[in-house]
């Protein structure tokens, strides 16, 4: 399971403030905390409030790379912002994200190729997010074809079937699970699958329980990665346990401890 730490996002008040006041300490603290908690990537999103998002992204990349050697996941809908970040990244980054829309594909995939970056492709287009697994899979196929067209290796393509809050779109959850299964049949090698996990529990009570239950269900469906709260210990314990039950790790009585120390 590839875990992308979600916490360095301007949507969180402390991070938003740090970006606005150019204060590196909260950012670096979250970078180190998430790395210690077992993150494989760190998501960077300057949030909607950043005055100059290009400058903010460059600063975020530099600030995080000063204390962490983890690869970064550059998260923005503005591709100039992502490009500015890619120019600073010391390790191949993950572009978060690109929908199945031709102009955006034409902007993102050549950029990914140029920087050797990986891409998260979203199963949505101009019309929005379809409900059923068939339509989601069809959009995933468009993105797979785009990766092939622009020469981005399929191992570097991550498909996000877009999980929505369960209190908004409860009927989407099973469709997302089915999409995760089907995406694996689209190509050889298949693309990876990833979800923005915390989305499933937006504005609910029992957020952690919903997150970890969905995580385990998605892992059973073949999920490869998640952008999530890696500092949620119960979530990490669930991931470790699911890995054991899916025969991805060899069981030992101390498996939880070993999973936490795996870096």
């Amino acid at each position, binding site marked *: 399971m590839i875990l992308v730490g979600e916490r360095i996002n301007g949507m969180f008040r402390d991070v938003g403030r740090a970006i606005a006041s150019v204060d590196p300490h909260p950012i670096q603290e979250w970078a180190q905390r998430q790395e210690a908690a077992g993150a494989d990537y760190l998501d960077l999103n300057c949030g909607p409030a950043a005055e100059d998002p290009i400058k903010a992204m460059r600063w975020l990349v530099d600030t995080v790379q000063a204390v962490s050697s983890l690869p970064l996941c550059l998260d923005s809908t503005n591709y100039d912002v992502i490009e500015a970040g890619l120019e600073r990244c010391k390790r191949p980054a993950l572009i978060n994200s690109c929908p199945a829309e031709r102009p955006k594909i034409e902007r993102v995939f050549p950029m990914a190729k140029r920087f050797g970056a990986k891409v998260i492709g979203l199963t949505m287009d101009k019309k929005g997010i379809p409900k059923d697994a068939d339509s989601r899979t069809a959009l995933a196929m468009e993105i797979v074809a785009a990766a092939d067209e622009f020469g981005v290796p399929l191992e570097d393509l991550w498909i996000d079937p877009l999980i929505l809050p369960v209190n908004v779109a409860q009927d989407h959850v099973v469709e997302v699970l089915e999409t995760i299964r089907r995406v694996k049949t689209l190509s050889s090698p298949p693309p990876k699958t990833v979800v923005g996990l915390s989305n499933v529990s937006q504005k609910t009570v029992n957020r952690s329980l919903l997150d970890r239950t969905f995580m385990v269900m998605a892992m059973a469906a073949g999920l490869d990665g998640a952008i999530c709260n890696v500092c949620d210990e119960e979530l990490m314990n669930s991931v470790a346990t699911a890995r054991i039950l899916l025969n991805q790790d*060899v069981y*030992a*009585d*101390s498996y939880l401890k*070993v999973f936490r120390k*795996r870096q």
Partner: protein
Amino acid sequence: MAVEVIRDRYTGRVGEVTLGATKDQGGTRIHTVTVGGDSTLPFLQFEGEVPHRPVIALEITDVAPEWSEPLRAELGEVWGDPAAWAKKCVECGADLVSLTLIGADPERQNRSPEDCARTVRDVLSAVGVPLIVRGCGNDEKDNQVLPAVAEAAAGENVALGTAKQDNYKTLTAACMVHKHSIIAQSPIDINICKQLNILISEMNLPLSRILIDPTTASLGFGIEYCFSIMERIRLGALQGDKMLSFPVICNLGYEAWRQKEASAPASEFPGWGEQPARGVLWEAMTAAAVLEAGAHILILRHPAALRLVRRRLDALMVPNPM
């Protein structure tokens, strides 16, 4: 028709363990022995690296053993004289000498920790190869004997065994203090194997000083089960499981020679053929099987078996240029 060679790529590899220490390294060994480091399944040189050749130790005991007749015929003259026996092992081509302190067993001679430590020192003086020292198997007694041995051999980086899930702390501490490597033994159980490695590493013994003894059965007595456990250990290491990424040591002489196929005289089973050749073959075939499963250190008893296994190893170590 051209055959496409499928090569798997792995993220992990088996860790390397070096046994013995030369003068520069604080010991008195003439050379050291390094095993492990593999980045592929056993001997698939076309796919990954097999940087170190598996090695063969010959077993000796501190007091004369009750081993079967073909072993007595070959080695009996040096039984009871561990230093002379160790020298003979090296003359026969052993990469290491493995000393089992059977005399410490309370049900045998009940030798004292001091006597056992003296035997270890005698053997260290007699030969220049790295040493493996294993206790008598009685946990309580081993916990007295092995720390004394560790101290007597301080700095020599001996492989000391055996640690078990319910008895590992004393030996781990002795290995830490006196700079030795540990043999972590599990009863043909990959989960206990991993757990024991975790427990030992939590005591901060460096990972480069842990050997896995997965417990081996002889040919004909459950070797298939051992084979698949060893395979899973190797696959775990290759998939990046650090707590399974240790070289594997197999105590084969003991297993092979205690079976009647190896130890029964021809008079008892006339159809089975002459005993010496049969016993040697039983031991060598058991060794050949566990090599394919991923063993790095083999403990054998009969010099003729060593020669056979060495020939097999020569062939296996020729890189396949596929």
